[in-house]
């Protein structure tokens, strides 16, 4: 007696049948036959075990004495600075901040990467960044308030782990040949499976809601070998943001990047195929620990046409990022001019070809 198993055909997606007598799977819709070992492993229902543990330290007595919290009444951002800091503006929205009180409470950072590049370097980098771009509105260049650029220590959660994972891929090989009358294309399909371990060190996840995540990930990477144990002395002359995204809330982003790394790294070991497409991945995290660190970032927030534009420079490496507005009129004008020129050249070439 035959037993029917519910499995999807990798060719057409139909439910394949397993014939216990023949010990083979066969799709009743497209008649494709498979060995039992050839069926892709269903990785969708595997239970992942991801555990992260903190190494977080607490503030010692008197350690926060010289630090105050400043609040922005406009965007609600809270920054930390030493008590000697006078009136300043919010690095996220550019409005005035006011002292809220003595800093207290939150977890003490484990590490800090001190600023290596000063304000002058940051201003030069911003000028260079803008000067290399096209179609930047003139008013944006002139209205830019370079002096408002601020050094901010941005809170990050750093995740370190050994990831144990597996990933499956669907791969394709294409072979072509021909005879006197016909051209033949043979497409062979393969199910690929890889499992293994990868270690990750200090994957950063932005711990501030005020700091755009894409902006912070764009200034990566930071060199953590230059990090030092946190000391409030490093905050002198700079602003610091308190984390308002917890480590637990940051974990999904770290896991997402780890999972994609497993897919991408394992894929590099799949060789000899014309196409490789990921079908899924699973991972477990072992020895997962997270730390709290402050990363140095130079920030400039400026408004143009009622829209906020934030520029960030990695205070350690000098990598500068930030979206620059485009002058739509200039873009339209350039498109029309270039288009008319290309059109004229095309028409001229038509004439030339016709006359030749």
């Amino acid at each position, binding site marked *: 007696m035959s037993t029917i198993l519910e499995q999807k055909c990798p060719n057409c997606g139909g439910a394949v049948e397993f014939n216990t007598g023949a010990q083979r799977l066969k799709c009743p819709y497209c008649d494709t036959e498979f060995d039992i070992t050839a069926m892709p492993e269903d990785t969708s229902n595997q239970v992942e075990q991801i555990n992260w543990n903190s190494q977080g330290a607490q503030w010692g007595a008197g350690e926060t004495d010289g630090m105050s919290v400043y609040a922005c009444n406009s965007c609600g951002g809270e920054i930390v600075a030493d008590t000697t800091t006078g009136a300043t503006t919010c690095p996220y929205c550019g409005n005035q901040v006011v002292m809220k009180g003595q800093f207290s409470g939150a977890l003490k950072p484990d590490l800090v990467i001190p600023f290596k590049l000063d304000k002058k370097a940051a201003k030069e980098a911003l000028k260079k960044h803008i000067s290399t771009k096209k179609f930047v509105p003139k008013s944006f260049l002139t209205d830019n308030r370079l002096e408002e650029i601020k050094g901010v220590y941005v809170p990050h959660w750093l995740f370190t782990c050994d990831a144990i994972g597996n990933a499956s891929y669907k791969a394709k090989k294409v072979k072509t040949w021909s005879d006197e009358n016909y*051209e033949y294309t*043979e497409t062979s399909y393969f199910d690929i499976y890889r499992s293994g371990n990868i270690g990750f060190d200090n994957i950063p996840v932005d711990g501030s809601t005020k700091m755009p995540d894409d902006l912070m990930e764009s200034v990566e990477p930071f060199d953590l070998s230059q990090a030092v144990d946190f000391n409030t002395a490093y905050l002198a002359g700079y602003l610091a943001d308190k984390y308002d995204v917890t480590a637990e809330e940051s974990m999904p982003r770290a896991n997402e990047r780890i999972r994609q790394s497993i897919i991408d790294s394992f894929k590099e070991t799949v060789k000899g195929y014309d196409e490789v497409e990921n079908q899924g991945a699973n991972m477990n995290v072992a020895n997962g620990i997270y730390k709290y660190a402050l990363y140095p970032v130079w920030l400039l927030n400026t408004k143009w046409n009622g829209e906020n534009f934030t520029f960030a420079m990695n205070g350690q490496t000098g990598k500068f990022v930030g979206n620059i507005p485009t002058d739509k009129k200039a873009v339209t004008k350039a498109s029309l001019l270039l288009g008319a020129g290309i059109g004229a050249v095309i028409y001229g070439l038509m004439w030339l070809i016709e006359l030749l």
Partner: protein
Amino acid sequence: MTKKIFATLVAVIICFSAVISASAYTQEYVIDYADKLASSEIEELDLFAEKLESAYGVTVLFCITEGTGDVTADEFSSGTYGDYTDNENGIIIVHDDWNKTYFTFISGNAGEFLTDASVDSMIDAYDSNDSYYGGIYACYELAEEYLENGYSGGYVYDEEPLNNDTDTIGASEEKDGVSIIWLPVSLLIGLLVGFLIINGIASKNKSVKMQENATVYTRPGSMVITGSADNFLYNNVERREKPKQTEKK
């Protein structure tokens, strides 16, 4: 007084006679040394050639001989017409009926419209006609057609197959330019390409994006593959007929 009137009348008559005789003079365009043509035929063909000369300034001479003696057709023509062609725009076609050979000579601006290929086609038209008169007439008709086309700025017959259909010749004149309708089409294509290029440049103003993975944070040398399987599933073979090559006519 009567004598004066008579003398004047005689002078007028003499002058009128001279004008009449001068206008009655017709240059010989068709020279028939072989006596193949009737005088009326020669006269008719001369008139045709004269018409060509006056309309286009090109003289078309046709000579039929029964051999050229001890000289070649080339030497014969040079000897007979050499002086004539020096300062003329025209062509000479000499047909040695005895040896069945032809010699052609083109001088001046005539070569601009009556090319070697067009003269060959004129000789073919002459040769394929049953009568000498009909042949020369057909030859002149072609000459007229080529001259007319050439002078009107149209198609100059050169190496294309002979085609007497004037409509076809007229149609080929359209090759000399691109229709104006292609101008807006070209501009439209240009604008599309220009739009794509400029927007591609403008899009570089955006440098902020999320990272895709954490590969840069991979611990060096930490990746170990513990399980690996490459399983063949199935294959498909598609067969497609090769496109047939069109046979040349």
